[in-house]
């Protein structure tokens, strides 16, 4: 491993330890997966130490994510891939949320200089009190240096539901693009060229156009490709244990779907040893990703996840606000000796508070206007611990209140209720 790569690795590791300012509306999250990774497709060392750092910059309605992975062998540090993603999410209005996703990625393997892809996608989500939802989306992906030579049209739809600690998701995604088929490409593509050349399959030739002169016609042609993925997945949290499993089937004719990508299944288990350290293990089969030039592969992995500021797991296929900016939080005297909690936050469906005054049971705050939420409570004089959350998001200390780490190492707000009698 040369010094430059060691330096990059050191900087990445050090960056994971940079504390984030949680009191800001935006926050940084990071994690590093490190462990043994074994594949059988030959594009990376068959078994190597894999390092995969991830950074996220989260604001209430936008998230910027940088992710990469590298394989370390005795001789070298081989960068495998890198992805830069941005997600913009609109406020929820009557249960409907819009989402725009952009990705720029590069995948590198030992056989080529790498493949690049830029894709943009828009989705419209219908949320049912964040216990379930549907979405419909579409977008385009532009790959480079792969057999796909056109922009690919991507359309997807799906549904998800939460049952207890488990989230079930079903997704249907359709890909449509033009690709170059050659004898150097997959077996099925070579077949398609051969078929086109011989003209033995009626209709097949109409979808193809030879891209070279007659001499090369037998080894290269363009054809319209289309395939669809149907995938089901489950994410289940049980205390310190997290399980992820997915299984899928790829629809499409044999020219577009290789036999090794027809069906796939994989599963991973994560056991959190502490708030910031977890053990991960898993394996399975992944289908080919033609748009990124990645072949199907079987993989097994085992290792550690180090998360200085743990990245929230996207258990549902919509980016919910990570830290919705509460505009204000006030406590005012109400009728009959009650205290009224007044919160200003717009574009959300639910607001809840909990604290010592509710025996840590969530209490629903009532909407009284576009962004005004109120709840009258019998709060006794003294200092109360209180947290608030919106749209079933993470509990957080209300803005404008002093905070402290409580006995379970969580941030809680400290609400001082004065004794009006004195």
């Amino acid at each position, binding site marked *: 491993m040369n010094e430059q790569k060691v330096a990059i690795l050191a900087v990445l590791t050090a960056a994971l330890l940079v504390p984030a*300012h949680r*009191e*800001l509306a935006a926050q940084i999250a990071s994690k590093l997966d490190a462990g043994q990774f074994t594949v059988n497709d030959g594009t990376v060392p068959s078994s190597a130490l894999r390092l995969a750092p991830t950074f996220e910059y989260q604001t209430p309605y936008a998230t910027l994510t940088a992710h990469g992975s590298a394989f370390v062998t005795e001789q070298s540090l081989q960068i495998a891939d890198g992805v830069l993603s941005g997600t913009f999410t609109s406020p929820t209005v009557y249960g409907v949320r819009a989402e725009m996703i952009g990705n720029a990625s590069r995948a590198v393997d030992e056989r080529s200089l790498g493949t690049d892809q830029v894709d943009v996608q828009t989705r419209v989500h219908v949320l049912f009190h964040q216990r379930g939802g549907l979405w419909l989306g579409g977008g385009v992906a532009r790959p480079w240096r792969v057999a796909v030579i056109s922009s690919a049209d991507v359309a997807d739809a799906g549904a998800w539901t939460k049952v207890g600690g488990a989230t079930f998701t079903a997704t249907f995604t359709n890909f449509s693009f033009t690709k170059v088929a050659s004898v150097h490409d997959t077996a099925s593509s070579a077949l398609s060229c051969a078929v086109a050349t011989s003209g033995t399959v009626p209709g097949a030739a109409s979808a193809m156009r030879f891209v070279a002169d007659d001499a090369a016609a037998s080894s290269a042609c363009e054809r319209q490709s289309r395939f669809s993925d149907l995938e089901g997945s489950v994410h289940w949290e049980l*205390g310190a244990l997290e399980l992820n499993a997915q299984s899928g089937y790829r629809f499409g004719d044999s020219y577009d779907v290789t036999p090794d990508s027809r069906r796939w299944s994989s599963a991973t288990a994560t056991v959190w040893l502490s708030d910031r350290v977890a053990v991960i293990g898993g394996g399975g089969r992944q289908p080919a990703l033609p748009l990124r030039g990645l072949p199907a592969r079987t993989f097994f992995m085992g290792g550690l996840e180090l998360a200085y500021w743990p990245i929230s797991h996207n258990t549902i296929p919509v980016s919910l606000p990570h830290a919705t900016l509460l505009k204000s939080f006030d406590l005012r005297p109400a009728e009959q000796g009650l205290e009224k909690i007044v919160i200003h936050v717009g574009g959300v469906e639910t607001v809840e508070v*909990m604290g*010592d005054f509710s*025996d*840590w*049971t969530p209490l629903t705050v009532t909407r009284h206007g576009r962004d005004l939420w109120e709840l009258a409570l019998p709060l006794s*004089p*003294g*200092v109360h*611990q209180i947290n608030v959350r919106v749209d079933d998001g993470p509990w957080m200390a209300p803005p404008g209140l*002093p*905070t*402290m*780490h*409580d*006995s*379970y190492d*969580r*941030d809680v707000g*400290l609400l*001082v209720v*004065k*004794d009006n009698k*004195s």
Partner: protein
Amino acid sequence: MKRSSLRSLPLRAGALLCLAAVPAVAQETDPFNKLDPNNRFSIELMIDSARNAGLPSDALRSLALEGIALKIDGKRIVDRVRREFTLLRTARTTLGPVSDEEVKAAAAVLNSGAKPAQLAAFKTREQGRSDLQAFTIWADLITRGVPSEEASSAISKLWEDGADDAIFYGLWKSVQTDISQGLNPGAALQNRIRETPVRTPQSKGAPPEG
């Protein structure tokens, strides 16, 4: 058996079943039932001990309920409740006969990292003066990274100078703003404490504001 008695038999049986079900329902709704019996016994023992010692036992109960709500491991909940018990006892011993609310707030300061000796300045106070706001600001400053010694020194000094709730709150808002803009927490407090107005010795005996 009379016909009327026979007729009312199902009603009586139903009523008995309902009565028998009441304790079962009550058990279901008691969150402490989610704890392992040994852990539950330990926590209830500490709550009783706190009550007998004149400590605010509701703080221990609330802490246990929070742990249960967060699905924290039972042994960890017992550890945290035991630690809180110790903090409450230390706060009571240090502050003397103050209200339960003040003991709880002082325990929160100790939990944040302050030392018991640093609470001593709050042992004596003017009648009707509350240290709740001072304690919450103190806990917050330590949480935000202000060194414990510097935070306790600043808060104690302000308290001894007769600062009221508004002054403590104003100091906190200023320091919070500076920290969020990237200033070192300790330096932010030192800068702001110099700008913080306090009462003159002549007005020290006046009743607190707010």
